[in-house]
């Protein structure tokens, strides 16, 4: 029996593991130990983890087992190891943001989401690799080395939450937290063949999430099923007075809503997401998924989001402008890296930032500073803010007639490591289908919907109205139940 449980253990869902924990067939300590051992064995190939504190992690698992023994389980994911993207503060643990700038930094407090996961009994499992300060689409911008895609280790896992996606896809973690500013949860989820949710702006507190672009950032959830993702979303979402952009919306019982997919919906298909540049295999996999929903009794409707072609330009102005302001705090004075080359007080800023930030982060700070400078403010920044209004209006209008939209997540499957590093603009375009959702503040779910002829995962994006995560998670679950994709795993 033991062998049978262990064989498939790494790919069991949180829901299945909960049953095993409840019945006593396995303990949280056993489960966590196995995750740690697996990570030690295979992460040399993937580099999904920047660091982990084995003793602390096992202590949390022990506490969970003690609770369960006396019938005081805190939540359905009590005792489940959840990976933490290294951009979210966990008190007493390193917080590098994938940057040399924060090498050696120890977080002095918990993010709100971490506090809520503690209250739910989760095992906080490791500090997960990412593009530096969450800027990137391939996880090649980490000071701690690139992450490899578990399906083909010569390819990227996507970014910026590439480590989170690789860890979940390879069975190193059951679930993981990521962050999504323009696609950083959904795009790596698609490249790695797992489920990733970008919640509506305001649904999850950003307190303790190191800021990239504050008006777009959301903490997202990655897992191997929509149901698992719903359970983690349930735990961490909801209003928080420590984040003034957090919205006091009506929470649902997400796990229950997800299982109840009887209500037939109207699903919109925006033509602008299926044009030039979309790989034919990705296109046909997403179209097959749309046919599945149609055959299941949902109504499919062609819609138009005319502003889509302007979303990337608006995004790169708004996101870099906000990043240039947010990253001004890294000055070498109060925390983090300080250059030894600085000769005087002012030079500390220039040298520290020149040495401490990587190329892509500096590029974006420069771009953001440029668009905010007085001569470009109106022509670039203010104009981009107005275009954002138009993009949001587009979405609101379309959602008058539909409950959800289905699109591809990415124009292609995972590309080769090194393929796009010399051309930042080409790299930016990897997020062309995910960025508009952040600008509009809607929610989006990446769901595995096929494989390319080369054996690489393909994802579809299910987009929902703000604070209607339950609807897209239910659609994701309905698709997963009828397909085998969630039971397909990379050979490592």
């Amino acid at each position, binding site marked *: 029996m033991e062998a049978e449980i262990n064989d498939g253990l790494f790919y069991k869902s949180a829901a299945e593991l909960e049953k095993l924990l409840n019945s006593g067939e396995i303990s949280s300590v056993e489960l966590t130990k196995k995750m740690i051992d697996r990570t030690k064995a295979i992460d040399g190939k993937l580099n999904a983890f920047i660091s982990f504190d084995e003793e602390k992690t096992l202590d949390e698992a022990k506490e969970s087992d003690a609770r369960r023994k006396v019938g005081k389980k805190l939540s359905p994911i009590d005792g489940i190891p959840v990976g933490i993207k290294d951009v979210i503060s966990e008190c007493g643990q390193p917080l590098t943001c994938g940057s040399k700038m924060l090498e050696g930094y*120890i977080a*002095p*407090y918990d993010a709100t989401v971490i506090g809520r996961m503690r209250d739910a009994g989760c095992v906080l499992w490791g500090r997960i690799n990412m593009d530096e300060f969450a800027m990137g689409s391939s996880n090649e911008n980490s000071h701690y080395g690139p992450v490899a895609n578990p399906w083909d280790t010569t390819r990227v896992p996507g970014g910026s939450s590439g480590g989170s996606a690789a860890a979940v896809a390879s069975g190193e973690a059951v679930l993981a937290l990521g962050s999504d500013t323009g696609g950083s949860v959904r795009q790596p989820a698609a490249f790695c063949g797992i489920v990733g949710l970008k919640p509506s*702006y*305001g649904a999850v507190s950003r307190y303790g999430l190191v800021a990239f672009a*504050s*008006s777009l950032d959301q903490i997202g959830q990655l897992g191997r099923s929509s149901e698992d993702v719903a359970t983690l979303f349930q735990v961490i979402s909801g209003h928080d*007075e420590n984040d*003034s*952009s957090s*919205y006091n919306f009506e929470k649902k019982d997400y796990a229950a809503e997800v299982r109840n997919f009887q209500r037939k919906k109207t699903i919109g298909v925006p033509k602008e997401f299926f044009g030039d540049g979309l790989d034919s295999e990705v296109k046909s996999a997403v179209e097959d998924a749309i046919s599945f929903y149609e055959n299941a009794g949902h109504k499919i409707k062609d819609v138009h989001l005319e502003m889509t*072609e*302007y979303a990337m*330009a*608006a995004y*790169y102005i708004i996101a870099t402008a906000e990043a240039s302001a947010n990253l001004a705090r890294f*000055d070498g*004075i*109060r*925390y*983090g*890296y*300080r250059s030894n080359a*600085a*000769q*005087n*007080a002012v030079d500390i*800023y*220039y040298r520290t*930032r*020149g040495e401490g*930030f990587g*190329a892509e982060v*500096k*590029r974006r*700070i*420069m*771009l953001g*500073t*440029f*668009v905010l*400078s007085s*001569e*470009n403010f*109106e*022509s*670039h920044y203010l*104009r*981009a*803010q*107005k*275009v*954002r*209004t*138009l993009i*949001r209006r587009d979405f609101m209008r379309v959602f008058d007639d539909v409950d959800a939209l289905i699109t591809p997540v990415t124009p292609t499957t995972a590309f080769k490591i090194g393929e796009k590093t010399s051309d930042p*603009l080409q790299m930016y375009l990897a997020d062309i289908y995910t960025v508009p959702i952040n600008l*509009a*503040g809607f929610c989006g779910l990446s769901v595995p919907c096929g494989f390319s002829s080369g054996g690489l995962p393909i994802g579809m994006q299910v987009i929902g109205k*703000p604070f209607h995560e339950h609807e897209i998670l239910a659609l994701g679950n309905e698709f997963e139940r009828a397909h085998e994709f969630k039971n397909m795993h990379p050979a490592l």
Partner: protein
Amino acid sequence: MESDKNSKHSMDIDRVAMLARIHFSDGEKKELARNFDSILKFLGKLLEVNVDGVEPSAHAVPLYNVMRGDESGETLPRELALGNAPKKRDNQIIVPKVVE
């Protein structure tokens, strides 16, 4: 529509680097100039959009001026707050001399 002369499709790297407080090597500056050439052209696409009479949106959630009560709460203990300072002494951060 705003006139095209306001929109710059090239960047004065030295000036922006000064504003951003980042030191770059000459090699890095060359690379940036090459990158920004194509990136700024791409961003110029927004000039096609008619934004007359459109209000800018700072974010996507209908929340404005969120305030909390002016009550003191818990703060980080000094030791923790200074825990990550690169150089410190006697509960203070050490920096190079500011006034010569």
